């Protein structure tokens, strides 16, 4: 019996739950009013928009580049960043906790606030379509 409890705990915590980009986008979309559809076009505009909050990181594209299916480069440290589009990097948008952590960090820096769940749904939709 002792052994059952930790296993049950793991299961209910959704420990390292692997998902698909589609499931992650749908999860964000589900928080919106009925009829909301994630839009790759809105996501693409958001991706390239210059928010003017941070001089060194004006847009998501500042590090992830205008070609998210290719490697990016950190705007301050110069380190290579693996492609953000799932077509080029199958690990992307499969780990909800990782996705949330980076949305929180990068949105605060670039946009100056947290991104809304609608913006996140659009962003993932854009990257899923990117070839």
């Amino acid at each position, binding site marked *: 019996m002792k052994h059952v409890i930790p296993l049950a705990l793991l299961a209910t915590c959704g420990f390292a739950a692997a998902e698909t980009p589609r499931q992650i986008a749908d999860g964000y979309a589900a928080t919106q009013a009925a009829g909301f559809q994630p839009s790759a076009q809105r996501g693409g505009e958001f991706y390239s928009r210059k928010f003017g909050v941070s001089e*060194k990181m004006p847009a998501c594209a500042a590090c992830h580049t205008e070609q998210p299916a290719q490697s990016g480069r*950190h705007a*301050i*440290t*110069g*380190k*290579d960043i693996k492609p953000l589009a799932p077509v080029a990097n199958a690990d992307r948008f499969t780990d909800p906790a990782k996705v949330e952590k980076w949305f929180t*960090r990068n949105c*605060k*820096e670039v946009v100056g606030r947290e991104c809304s769940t609608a913006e996140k749904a659009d962003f993932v939709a854009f990257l899923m379509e990117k070839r």
Partner: protein
Amino acid sequence: MQRTLALVAMGLISFPALADRMPIPADAPPAFKAECGSCHLAFPPALLSADDWRRVMGGLDKHYGDNATLDEKTRRPIEDFLIRNAGSGRRTMGAGVPPRLTFTDWFRHKHDEVPAAVWKDKQVGSAANCAACHPRAEAGSFSEREIRMPGGYRHEHD
């Protein structure tokens, strides 16, 4: 013979461990490489003092113009690991506030032959971008033999 003596003498006055191999110590928590290696190289802990690591890990929300916040259950084991493996003495002196291992006397001394134009090269961007010139930095190798500088500059290792 003279060369051997010189090498032995150099060995005595420099650091006990070989400077060109700095692998990440084996007791690193799994989160260290994932969290501290995502925006830049996961730096070798021996390059800052314990006090400086405390300073770095105590202010992750304001991290050199970036935000590297972690939840406490991830942050704590990383801080403990960095402090356990921190450096001391000349290697960590001069890091300043906020602490930069690229400001230490040791780092400057090791890089006194790097031309100013190379530091400014777009491919480098920052002295903390170790991998721009040390292609095997990720594996903890900084050997002079492996150095490749952007912009076609050559380093003659001696």
